[in-house]
């Protein structure tokens, strides 16, 4: 694994609502290297998708904005770049795969046309016809069977899994350094999900691209990712290598998440359940956002924000933000 390709430092993104500026991404830092896959895990409202939208700078307008922090792509800060510069980064340096393949593709253009459009970002002015061979290659690379014929197909003629492969072909058309995949398999069947994860891994092995995989499914993280960050209420509560975090989950939220997912390995009579609900967006928050649901909550948790400290595995890459680190739980 190479040096960091994408580095996010102390990112803070807010939504300007009538009630005030609500932080949706709060002091988030991580990095991902060439050939490396980072999982971002969280529930709805945890800020995982907002983090992705911040990197691509396609936040909901006019209310969303990056308030502070850096997003370094190969040491160049993307924050504050003019829109023309950012537009060049999208698709060329950073590719994106979204959750729903049925809405990511334009229904009135053939898939060949849509892949060509992505190729033209890198080869402006090249006649479309001459790119057709490259399109077929790309479709083969994402395992679209019968690619020569399929370039002329429309999205509605394909299954969900096939469409998501085409979205993948568009994402890798510009040979990006980073691919951001936001829940790309949630709309797919489990058997097709598995094919897709293998495909992403193959693409990564061939091209050495870095992947940021956003998901709520810890099983996918265990299968695909090298390291992960766990987000809750807009903040990272735990980060580390997948092996360290799974063996020694250190934040009570991570621990609870891992315990509450029903196992496919064995039958249990009762699931571990976290009481309450994920936090709503709010302007002023005090203390740890998990405190209202935390079984180990103490006085300090409700009024002071915990810092990122070493996690239970002891590795210096394994961090957790909890006041109870090292205490008996």
């Amino acid at each position: 694994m190479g040096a960091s390709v994408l580095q996010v430092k102390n990112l803070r993104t807010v939504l300007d609502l009538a009630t005030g500026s609500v932080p949706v991404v709060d002091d988030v830092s991580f990095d991902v290297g060439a050939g490396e896959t980072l999982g971002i895990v969280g529930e709805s409202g945890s800020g995982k998708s907002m983090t992705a939208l911040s990197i691509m700078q396609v936040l909901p307008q006019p209310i969303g904005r990056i308030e502070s922090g850096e997003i370094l792509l190969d040491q160049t800060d993307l924050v504050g770049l003019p829109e023309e510069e950012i537009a060049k980064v999208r698709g060329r340096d950073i590719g994106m795969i979204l959750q729903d393949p049925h809405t990511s593709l334009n229904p009135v253009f053939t898939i060949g046309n849509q892949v060509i459009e992505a190729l033209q970002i890198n080869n402006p002015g090249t006649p479309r016809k001459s790119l057709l061979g490259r399109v077929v290659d790309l479709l083969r690379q994402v395992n679209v069977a019968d690619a020569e014929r399929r370039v002329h197909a429309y999205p509605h003629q394909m299954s969900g899994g096939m469409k998501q492969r085409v979205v993948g072909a568009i994402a890798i058309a510009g040979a990006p350094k980073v691919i951001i995949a936001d829940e790309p398999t949630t709309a797919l069947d489990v058997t097709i999900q598995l094919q897709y994860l293998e495909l992403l891994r193959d693409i990564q092995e061939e091209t050495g691209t870095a992947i940021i995989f956003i998901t709520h499914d810890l099983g996918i993280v265990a299968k695909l990712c090298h390291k992960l960050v766990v987000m809750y209420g807009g903040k990272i509560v735990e980060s580390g290598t997948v092996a360290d975090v799974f063996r020694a989950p250190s934040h009570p939220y991570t621990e609870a998440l891992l315990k509450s997912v029903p196992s496919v390995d064995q039958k249990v009579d009762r699931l571990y359940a976290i009481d309450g609900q994920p936090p709503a967006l709010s302007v002023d928050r005090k203390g740890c956002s998990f405190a209202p649901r935390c079984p180990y909550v103490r006085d300090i948790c409700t009024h002071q924000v915990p810092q990122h400290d070493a996690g239970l595995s002891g590795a210096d890459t394994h961090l957790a933000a909890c006041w109870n680190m090292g205490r008996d739980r």
Partner: protein
Amino acid sequence: MSPPSILNVSGLTKHFPIPHGLLGRQEHIVRAVDDVSFSLAHGQTLALVGESGCGKTTLARMLLRLLEPTSGSVEIEGKDIATMSKAEMRRFRTNVQAVFQDPWASLSPRMRVFDIVAETLVINDNLTKGELTRRVDEALIAVGLRPEQAKYYPHEFSGGQRQRIAIASAIIAKPKLIILDEPVSALDVSIRSQIMNLFKDLQQDVGCSYVVVAHDLGTTRFMADRIAVMYLGKLVEIGPTDQMFDAPQHPYTQALLSAALPLRVDTPHEAIILRGDVPSPVNPPTGCPFHPRCQSVIGDICKTVPPRLKELGSPDHVMSCHIDP
């Protein structure tokens, strides 16, 4: 003798004609559900699993009589639901309830929680206002809500709470069978386990049976006593949950269950990766519908002869495959 069953399904088939050709004069037939038979004992849970398009939701809709079958029958406690009288149908509508996937779509935004939950009783029983309130309070408490929340509208609740409201309205009439169609997949991970525990508790308290349609295999393993695997409208294997997960027999069941991603990093996850997508149900493959994707094809017989269901050791566990068990 085996315990009496709440539900008996035999030879259940649903074909959807789709217009085709000039002026739609020709018809193609989608065999959404094709000759499916099974039974479910009182107080037990059966899970229907399979890829999208395998017919599991169509089957569930026929169990609720929201769709009329092309052929075959559904019996609730020995009574065929297709030939029920009006009075019997009313009783059926209280005895068999459903909880659907999306708690944003399944609750009327213009009704208060009280009216949503009480609706089944208002339509079917003549209760006094006081008795009705008592029953609604009881149902809300059973699903972990507070009686005073009955006066609010659905939009004032979170997704998990809405699903609790949907469950309260399903259980208030003390049904014998509840059809759960992807009951937790729209919910956040940390909320899912709360709701799944609730289903189990209710089953223990009330003794109701469940038919659960779910694509998440962890959910299935937790909820179900028995699992029925469907492929292109056909039942390919049905058996006790533990046997199905620990020693699946049909090649499709093996592949499907191996696609579940376990939460562990110490031992590698070995999976059978299926080639290609599910074929079109309009024009299913000849012979065994699974043969184009099957990793264990034994010869031409798979391509030409449709396999029949056969017992694997006990009548409790059957599959349709040419391979000798």
